C-alpha cells in the first residue's frame, strides 16, 4: 500500500501552509506547550523541503536537526523539562551552524 503520494515542491509547500494554518487555529485553544511542539514539527517538515523542490540543494545539517527534532518532540507529552532542554540544544546547534555558515566562512 502506498501511504504517501509523490510530492512536488509546490504540493509540499501547500502541505506546509495547511499545517501552519491549522496549527495556528489549534493553538488558539490548545495547551500553550503545543505551540513550540507545532513549530518543531514544522521545522521537521521544512527540513524535507529540498527532497520535493527542484533547485534546492540537500542540507545534511537540517536533516540531522530533523532527526533530533523527531526523536525529542514527543517529550512534550511526558517530560516538559526535557522538552525545554531539547529545544535549547536544537537552538544551540543551529546557532553554531549559523556561525559556521555566516561568520567563519567570510
Amino acid at each position, binding site marked *: *500500500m502506498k*501511504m*504517501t*503520494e509523490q510530492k512536488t515542491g509546490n504540493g509540499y509547500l501547500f*502541505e506546509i501552509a495547511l499545517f501552519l494554518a*491549522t496549527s495556528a*487555529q*489549534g493553538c488558539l485553544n490548545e495547551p500553550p506547550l503545543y505551540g513550540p511542539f507545532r513549530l518543531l*514539527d514544522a521545522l521537521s517538515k521544512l527540513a524535507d523541503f529540498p527532497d520535493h523542490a527542484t533547485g534546492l540543494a540537500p542540507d545534511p545539517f537540517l536533516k540531522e536537526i530533523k532527526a533530533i527534532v523527531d526523536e525529542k518532540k514527543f517529550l512534550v*507529552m511526558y517530560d516538559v523539562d526535557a522538552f525545554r532542554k531539547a529545544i535549547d540544544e536544537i537552538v544551540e546547534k543551529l546557532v553554531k551552524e549559523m556561525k559556521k555558515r555566516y561568520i567563519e566562512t567570510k
Partner: protein
Amino acid sequence: MDIFEVIKGRRSVRRYKSDVVSNDVVDKILDAARWAPSGSNIQPWKFVVISDMNLLELVRKVSPGYLGETPLAILVCSDREREYRVGGTLGRDYLSIADCSMAVENMVLAAYALGLGSCIVKSFSRIAVKEMLEIPEGIEPELLVIIGYPAHKPTPPARIPIGEIVYLNKYGEKFPTSLER
C-alpha cells in the same frame, strides 16, 4: 487478554506500519464503541470510517495532531441535535462529549486487544474535516481515532501518584492504598 492488561498496556502510538486493517477487525472496534455507556442511553455517536488513502492523506494534512501515517482513521462525531432533543442543554453541551469519549475509550482498548496501535486526536481543523467528510449541520466532529499496526512500543508515561488524586470520604483525606504508581 485480561482487561487490566489491556487498560495498562495501551499507549498512544505515533509510528505505524503500513499494513491494512481488515474489515472484520474494524467491525469489532466499532462494535466495542457502540456498546459504550451514554447518558440517558442517548447513544449520540456517529462514526465516519476513513480508509480511502487519498482522503486519509487530506485529513492528515489538516490535522496537526495526526502524527504518523495510518491506514485507517475513525472520526467520532456527536449528534448534537439529538442530544438536545432528548437530553436538553446538559446533553448537548456536556454529555455529548462525555458519551463520545467513552465510546472512544472502548475503541482504543479494543484496538489494543486486537494487536493494533491507536492515538486519539483532537488537534484537527473542525472546519476542514467537516467540509472534506461532508458532515451535516448538527453533527459535531469530536475526536479522531487513528489506528494501525504499531511500528514501535512507546514507554509508559509516569502516572500522578495515587495519593495526589484519590481521597477517602472527604476531599484531601488520605486514602490508604498499596498502589505505588
